[in-house]
């Protein structure tokens, strides 16, 4: 009897999983910026974004060691640049560098529309992009997108949020 119950539960779980996979695909189609059916690895996505950039611009971004935490702190205090948080909005809301604006990689196209007036006025000014830490690719992808759209002085704060938070520097929440 127990075996029968376990089999019945397993069948229920399989049915539920199938339903969730189908629902996931359907919901994805309704979402702006839907995922493609086939996964595209990070490298390929970055390549796709940088395809239209000139080789010198790509090199400048790839070779850019970025700014360090001290410089980032100075910028945050004197508002010397537009600071962009490339992490998902949820993470931005739970804490970010003061005065940073959210432009998540996941929702780039939509958020870019909202921020366009601000970004247009910063085309020839410094823009600093950061994400979670040294390993996350979000800041590079967002920076490449910004370069593609005409921003000229985009730099990375590669240490990102983890570096900032570890140092106990002030943060803003929304």
């Amino acid at each position, binding site marked *: 009897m127990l075996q029968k119950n376990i089999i019945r539960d397993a069948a229920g779980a399989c049915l539920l999983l199938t339903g969730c*996979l189908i629902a996931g695909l359907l919901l994805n189609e309704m979402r702006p910026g839907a995922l493609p059916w086939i996964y595209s690895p990070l490298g390929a996505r970055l390549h796709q974004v940088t395809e239209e950039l000139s080789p010198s611009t790509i090199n400048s971004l790839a070779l850019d060691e970025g700014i360090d935490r001290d410089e980032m702190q100075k910028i945050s205090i004197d508002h010397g640049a537009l600071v962009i948080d490339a992490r998902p909005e949820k993470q931005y809301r739970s804490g970010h560098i003061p005065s940073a604006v959210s432009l998540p990689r996941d929702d780039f196209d939509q958020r870019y529309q909202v921020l366009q007036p601000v970004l247009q006025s910063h085309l020839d000014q410094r823009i600093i992009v950061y994400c979670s830490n040294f390993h996350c690719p979000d800041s590079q992808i967002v920076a490449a997108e910004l370069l593609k759209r005409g921003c000229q002085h985009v730099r990375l704060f590669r240490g990102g949020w983890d570096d900032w938070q570890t140092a106990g520097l002030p943060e803003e929440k929304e």
Partner: protein
Amino acid sequence: MSAIRFQQMVFWLGRLVLGTVFIYAALLKIASPREFADSIAAYQILPFSAINLLALGLPLFELACGLLVVTGFYFRVGLLGILALLAVFIIAFVLALLRGLSVDCGCFGAHSWFDASPAVVLVRDGLLFGMAALLYRHHLRGCRKAIIPSSPQSS
């Protein structure tokens, strides 16, 4: 409070904790499917054609299982789903570590402090698995008792 009542309360609390953890983790992943897809890809187990499908469907499955466990509706199905998810994840995580891959668990969204180190991830998921297994066993036994009542004692 009788021992049975106390036991019932402990199991109810266990259900609440387990279900809430899964609902919370699912909502984080539903909000950032691309990040979750990157986390799945880092394990280098699945073909590219399956990654996005799972990145979109698994968080909904987690959410559904969490809700079933918390509400008690088809409770054992939800628990078995959670057990299967945890078992698959623990195996994939250990395999990734053995292969020397630097994987971010991605359980609570990418780069979460919940997933600080592999040891934390394994201990946490091991505990959740143990909790789910105990709950499932308890409810299966309850089911058996209901089906085969103990024989009446002779006076």
